[in-house]
């Protein structure tokens, strides 16, 4: 089985300072892979490098086996990858409908399909309908995260990269937000790479987990094993 997303010996950093090195990750079709680790372990850097937001210093990124290392985020998005960025990535001065329009325009969703896509997302996350015309700055944290997830789903991605979506949310709200995404994974084969610090909640929905420590992969395996193993718990 060809992984939908794969990194081979990936290394990256900022301004000559190495943050991640020799990262080998595979994300299989319809899989939820959870990446956990301390603050500063390199989780977000790994995700950003996969999405083309940071140029790697070494190694490569592959989508469906094709090398996409040199592609920019727009090109990667057009291959069916979407990202829910850390900090929700909503624009305070824009209304929710503007944010959605921006999201569809960014990845070239044809005009004729935009209304249908919007309805599809509102069907998955119906609560958004109530605050479509409100500026994002007036929304609660949970509503903003819902918008961020909804925006990422608009192009109907095959691969969803989520960077700490639980930040600032109660566990129940976090699970409520992830439930529709989980449903898409189960029914439509969406593959999800979930970077999280909220290990307990993240492992509940993951098929596989890996631990990043000091910019390198320290462990990979089953979520149950990770949750029960005291030595592993110390790693994160």
């Amino acid at each position, binding site marked *: 089985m060809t992984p939908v997303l794969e990194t081979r010996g990936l290394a990256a950093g900022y301004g000559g300072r190495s943050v991640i090195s020799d990262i080998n990750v595979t994300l299989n079709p319809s899989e939820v892979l959870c990446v956990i680790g301390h603050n500063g372990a390199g989780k977000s850097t790994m995700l950003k490098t996969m999405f083309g*937001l940071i140029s790697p210093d070494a190694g490569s990124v592959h989508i469906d086996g094709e090398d996409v290392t040199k592609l*920019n*985020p*727009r090109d990667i998005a057009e291959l069916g990858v979407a990202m829910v960025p850390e900090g929700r990535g909503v624009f305070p*001065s*824009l209304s929710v409908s503007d944010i959605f329009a921006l999201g569809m325009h960014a990845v070239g969703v044809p005009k004729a399909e935009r209304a249908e896509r919007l309805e599809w997302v509102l069907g998955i996350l119906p609560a958004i309908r109530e605050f479509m015309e409100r500026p994002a700055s007036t929304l609660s944290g949970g509503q903003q995260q819902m918008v961020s997830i909804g925006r990422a789903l608009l192009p109907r991605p095959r691969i969803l990269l989520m960077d700490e979506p639980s930040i600032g949310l109660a566990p129940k709200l976090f699970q409520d937000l992830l439930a529709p995404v989980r449903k898409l994974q189960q029914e439509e084969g969406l593959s999800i790479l979930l970077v999280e610090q909220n290990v307990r909640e993240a492992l509940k929905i993951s098929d596989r987990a890996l631990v990043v420590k000091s910019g390198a992969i320290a462990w990979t395996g089953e979520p149950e094993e990770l949750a029960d193993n005291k030595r592993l718990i110390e790693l994160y």
Partner: protein
Amino acid sequence: MEAYIFNLLNLIAIYGILAVSLNFIIGYAGIYSLAHAVFFGLGAYTSAWVGLNVTPSTFVTIPAAMLVAAIVSLVLALPALRVRGEYFVAASLGLQVIAVTVFSEWKSFTGGIGGVLAIPPVNLFGAEIYQPREFAIVSVIALLIVIAITLALVRSSFGRNLRAIRDSESAAASFGKNVPLIKTVAVVISAALAAVAGALYASFISFINVESFMLDTSVLLMAMVIIGGTGTFLGPLVGAALLLILPSAISYLSFLPQTEIGALQQIIYGLGMTLLMIFRPGGIVGRRSGT
């Protein structure tokens, strides 16, 4: 008195174009430039050169001015916009310093320190327009066109992109937006529109030299935008009008000692700006503090 008022109106329209074009990048894209006077100057020098050496037709001088300013703005934008905000400010300051030196030394194009004299007036279909009253019609129409262009852009998907980038560059990039390209296009448009003001200024004054295009002009333009209200439609116009009228208005206050009027102007002007920024940081037209 009538000529004075129309002269002032022309200057408000010309500086209004500059403030509107600067607000396009400051207010909607969050790009703070200290080089706007460079594009103002490039527009003025280019249109003067074309007017004196090629044709006085305004339909040629203004597009030529816009083209040159757009090309030079690319030189600034392409490398500088790949870095974050404060680095662009520094890069634009560098361009401003270099441009002043070039404007002062490139005698064959700019006339050096002495400047360029006898610049042809606005020429529309062979008719020369140099009287302040008639010129005011041209300058106000030009201002309205520039406002219409910027409003159309701001309300389009391009404007939505700019506001998204202003709010969060990293989030816009995670949407798949080509942030450097969008910012570069915004800077090029802003510079080309500033060149329109330069071309009008050269035609109106008929004499230009480097003193009109120095760093203090760039700072004055930024002050117009910030005091008026960044990211607002009326703010830059109010800022331009206020900062052009205020110094003259102060000189009419009869109770002020005429020998000290220059220093008093500066003190009142500076104090007014400081108080405004404390009590209305969003500018005169912008939102009140805390709302």
